[in-house]
């Protein structure tokens, strides 16, 4: 990881922007001090790392002053709604926002996991890599409670060579087919993301969201003739990619109740990423040396689960602690915008007088 160190302050619990100045002399998680003169108010905050960090939270977040902590909701308030979690690679959603996806599905959403690349760069050969990651995508979807997983199989790490408009066409088709209301995507405005697949996917998801519903279907009208209906995507959860990320956060989601589900989704990711069966491999490696880690238990399944929870999820525990939560995920959330026509209608209702 090539970390940048232009600001070196931690985010403290209960942080508000107005309290930033009070933090200016506090040491960061790395023990750094800031040389920022007191007359400046920081505009970005170092995200602290635990000693176990797998580097899954960005170096910096910029927090909005209307930040909301999204907590568990009783019952099934989202019954009838549909979410699409769209990722470039099989481990993007699982690592960065699986807790929130699992939470929303538990609260009534029907979920779909959509992977756009073929993940061919992860595996002992290209062929083995694509097969394992295809399986992983399906298994991660199951672990999250998704109804179905889709894969588009664009070539891994080469998506900036794809026709963006064709990707968008396919996303519009799926959003309409599935009648998606809410999407999860990697923020295409997330600074310093080095992976072209992330940027392409984020950009095209963002565009497909409004085009899937615009103008009663002037985009790809043949899809409507095929029986599809315009989609009404009104909520978007943008997540950052770590560690390069430096993005705006206005929503922290309490995923404490869903951390085990997030762990299981990551254990399902065996073809790539830091999770998968690394626990079992570590356990076997230690056994060859005549050692064991009590944390990893007595079988491979336990080892995988414990490894992921202890070592990989620690970044989300550390992030949660900043907000008084056990585990958390951070998002730039964009919610439903008011319908301008309804505003006008309401005004007319209230102010119209007889001729």
């Amino acid at each position, binding site marked *: 990881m090539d970390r940048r160190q232009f600001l070196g302050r931690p985010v403290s619990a209960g942080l508000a922007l107005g309290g930033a100045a009070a933090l200016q002399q506090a040491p960061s998680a790395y023990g750094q001090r800031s040389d920022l003169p007191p007359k400046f108010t920081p505009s970005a905050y170092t995200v602290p790392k635990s000693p176990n960090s797998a580097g899954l939270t960005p170096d910096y977040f910029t927090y909005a002053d209307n930040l909301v902590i999204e907590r568990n909701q009783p019952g099934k308030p989202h019954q009838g709604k549909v979410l699409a979690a769209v990722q470039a690679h099989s481990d993007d959603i699982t690592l960065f926002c699986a807790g929130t996806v699992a939470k929303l599905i538990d609260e009534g959403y029907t979920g779909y996991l959509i992977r756009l690349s073929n993940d061919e760069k992860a595996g002992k050969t290209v062929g083995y890599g694509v097969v394992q990651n295809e399986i992983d995508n399906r298994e991660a979807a199951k672990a999250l409670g998704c109804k*179905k997983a*889709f894969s588009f199989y664009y070539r891994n790490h080469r998506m900036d060579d794809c*026709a*963006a*408009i*064709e990707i968008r*066409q*396919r996303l519009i*088709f*799926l959003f309409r*087919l599935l009648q998606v209301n809410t999407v999860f995507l990697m923020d295409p405005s997330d600074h310093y993301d080095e992976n072209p697949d992330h940027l392409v996917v984020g950009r095209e998801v963002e565009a497909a969201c409004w085009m899937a519903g615009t103008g009663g279907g002037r985009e*790809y*009208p*043949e*899809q409507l*003739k*095929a*029986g*599809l209906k315009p989609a009404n995507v009104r909520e978007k959860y943008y997540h950052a990619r770590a560690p390069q990320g430096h993005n705006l956060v206005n929503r922290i989601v309490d995923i404490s109740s869903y951390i085990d589900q997030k762990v299981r989704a990551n254990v399902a990711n065996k073809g790539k990423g830091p999770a998968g069966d690394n626990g079992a491999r570590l356990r076997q490696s230690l056994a060859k040396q005549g050692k064991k880690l009590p944390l990893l238990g007595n079988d491979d399944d336990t080892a995988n689960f414990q490894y992921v929870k202890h070592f990989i999820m620690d970044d989300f525990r550390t992030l949660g602690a900043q907000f008084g939560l056990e585990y958390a995920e951070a998002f730039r959330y964009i919610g439903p915008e008011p319908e301008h026509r309804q505003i006008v209608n309401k005004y007319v209702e209230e102010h119209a007088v007889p001729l």
Partner: protein
Amino acid sequence: MHRRSFPMPGLAGAAPQVNGGEPIVVKDEPGMPHRGKVFAAVHAHLDDIPYYAAGLCAKLMSEGYTGYILRTSNDERCGGRSTAENILSNEQDHFRMAAALGFKDVFDFYYQNHDMDGISYIDLRGRLILIFRMLQVDTILSFNPWGHAEENPDHWVTGRAVEEACWMAGMPNDFHEHLEAGIQPHTVGERYYFYAREGQPYNRVVDIGSHVEKKIDAIVECKSQGDGNRGSIVRAQLARQGKRLPLLGNDDRAADRAYVRQFLLEDDREHGKPHNLEFAERFYYIDRRPAKSKADEYIEKNAVNL
């Protein structure tokens, strides 16, 4: 489209022929032998189908086919008005032309006219695949993507995408999300490629004698381009000079039809002459319908009970 000037001298005999040197002459078939079948006529510009294949379209529909027409460009460069006005007038002409020929539905993709070699080719192909599957298209009419002397990029881009979409539409792993929507893979078996430029190959000569009135119906709707209203324009010009052409009749509609019949069907007349036909259209026909393999025949003949 970018057509040759009209009227043209005949080109019969100038182009290479295939199938042992002699094209097959296709005549009207009695009854409705194609009932239940679907064809898609895919062109780039308002006046492509009317000139190259309106007779065949009318013939196929009269023999039972259901026809759909698809225009890939927005025709913004043709019409003699502003770019925006050209898009509108060509769009409306296209609807009227399609109705005149009896197409069941019209699709317009509106890619930028003359610039289609700069679009995302795979986006075009994906859209064609969806439509071929959705309509379960059996037969297509379009440009020959391998036809020489084609100087209009919209033509060869459209032809190439159509050719590829025909077989990819049958492959379930291409755009597999279509299957989720209940839209099944479907291979397009028969193709009629236009004879659009001098020197392009053809192996079918279709007798359109009994469908030429329909063809005229289609061409006269091509007012933004294709000279469909040339007759009424000439009639008005002459009237301003205190003259008239008896050929053009007494109203604009009659003038347009007469003008087309007299001056704009020369190619079809010339294509018919070698075969003693009044009017004919030329095509390069490809049959890709699956045939029973030798293995299938062998298994069928020789398989015995266990």
